């Protein structure tokens, strides 16, 4: 196990040449903030937050990407939340940069980030009520 990674997060090695990521962990939705805090303490930088709508499985997946600044080490923390009530805690208290990424994910998928200071539309118009990247979105 890589000494740079916090031990309590269940990271699995990934084939970098095929996938472009070094380690991945799947965590429960309520453990995400703790994982982010551990990675922040270990010196990782926030890359981005990706949302994926798995409509067939009735779930939405959130992928938090982190990377290190002095050597090549990319990790991803994945979690799944139910699609009909997508809610998860915000990590913007740990990583202020997550503020905008979470607003964007909310815009596209309708995922509510509990505790977010300002979950208003970021890229969509201020009065938008639709979420375009959902698979059942009809323009």
């Amino acid at each position, binding site marked *: 196990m890589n000494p740079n990674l916090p031990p309590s997060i269940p990271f699995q090695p990934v084939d970098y040449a095929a996938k472009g990521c070094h380690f991945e962990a799947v965590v429960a939705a309520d453990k995400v903030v703790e994982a982010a805090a551990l990675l922040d303490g270990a010196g990782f930088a926030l890359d*981005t937050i990706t949302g994926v709508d798995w409509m067939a499985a009735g779930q939405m997946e959130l992928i938090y990407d982190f*990377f290190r*600044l002095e050597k090549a080490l990319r990790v991803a923390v994945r979690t799944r939340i139910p699609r009909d009530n997508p809610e998860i805690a915000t990590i*913007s208290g740990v990583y202020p940069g997550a503020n*905008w990424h979470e607003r964007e994910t909310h815009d596209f998928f309708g995922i509510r980030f509990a505790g977010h200071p300002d979950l208003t539309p970021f890229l969509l118009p201020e009065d938008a009520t639709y979420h375009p990247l959902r698979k059942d979105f009809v323009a």
Partner: protein
Amino acid sequence: MSTTEASPAETGRETFVLNLGPQHPATHGVLRVKMTMDGEYVVRAEPVCGYIHRMQEKMGENRTYAQFLPNTSRIDYLSALTYTHAFVGAVERAAKLQVPPRGEYIRVITSELNRISSHLVWWGAFLLDLGGFTPLLYAFDDREKILDLLEGITGSRLTYSYFRIGGLYNDVDEAFIKGTREFVAQMRPRLKMYRSLVTENIILRKRLIGIGPVSAEMCRKYGATGPVIRGSGVGYDVRKIEPYSAYAEFDFVAPTFAEGDSMARYLVRMEEMAQSLRIIEQGLDKLPAGPVMAEKVPRVLKLPAGDYCYAVEAARGRFAVRIVSDGKEIPYRVKLRSPSLSNLSLFEEASRGMLLPDALALMGSLDLVIPDIDR
């Protein structure tokens, strides 16, 4: 990131809201910044994005991998080749396609030419913001030469669809090689002239030194990369830390300055132009012969199910693509990690309490391209 703003009753000073943009000579693209001002001081600067949101990520879910290629150039049009590189790199990683060495070298050479032209636009526009109207014309004069070189092999001036999945669209010809060598030879003295006329000008130095300090810790927390973090003392450059394509075979330096102010970010980009010239020269010297396209690239490309990532060093910072595939010929999800978004996100915290011209100098030194933020 909420700020409890002191009410006028507490501070005894009234604030007013000044709207910078979305149409404004200083913001490079359609960006609106709601600035709460106390006289000339910025109390809070809140960027409002989305004026040029084109839903590129949704378009990624409606097109095949090859059909999405023109979109990649248009995300950040100044640094178009590097963005295409990230996307085709992710697809090639997933499909296990090996680009021949000549293709990789030409990708590096053209990406570095693109980097120089992007930095030239940044330089001219930044000086324009600061009130020096003339360098823009000189920068565009140099940039015309790069655009002519790239037009000769790709057919476009700005949004090149040159990289293909598995290699390149077109091989380079003798005219390109000769023209690029001439360009490198005449660009070096021009960079020297820019240094003595502009970089060492006392008025410019007073405008930039000590202005807009951004710490390395702030960059890490916001995910700011590129010249922003390299101007704060951290030498993070994707080409060096996570080498991709043929960059591992080149000898160059990722310039890093420790001061963290706008001058440091300015100097990083000026130095990067010189380093790019070195890379181009080495590339032309060592250019291997051979094909430029991989063999056996399937006409209908279906990637196996799973996630694939690829990161490149664009002119503005780290640009990463994550493709989520479910085995079909169109991606399930395409995520574009924009460097300008992460760079701009620290503007709100970094500009608190600054004077308006200094805040604008800080924003100019972050080198933003708004279509990259909005995608």
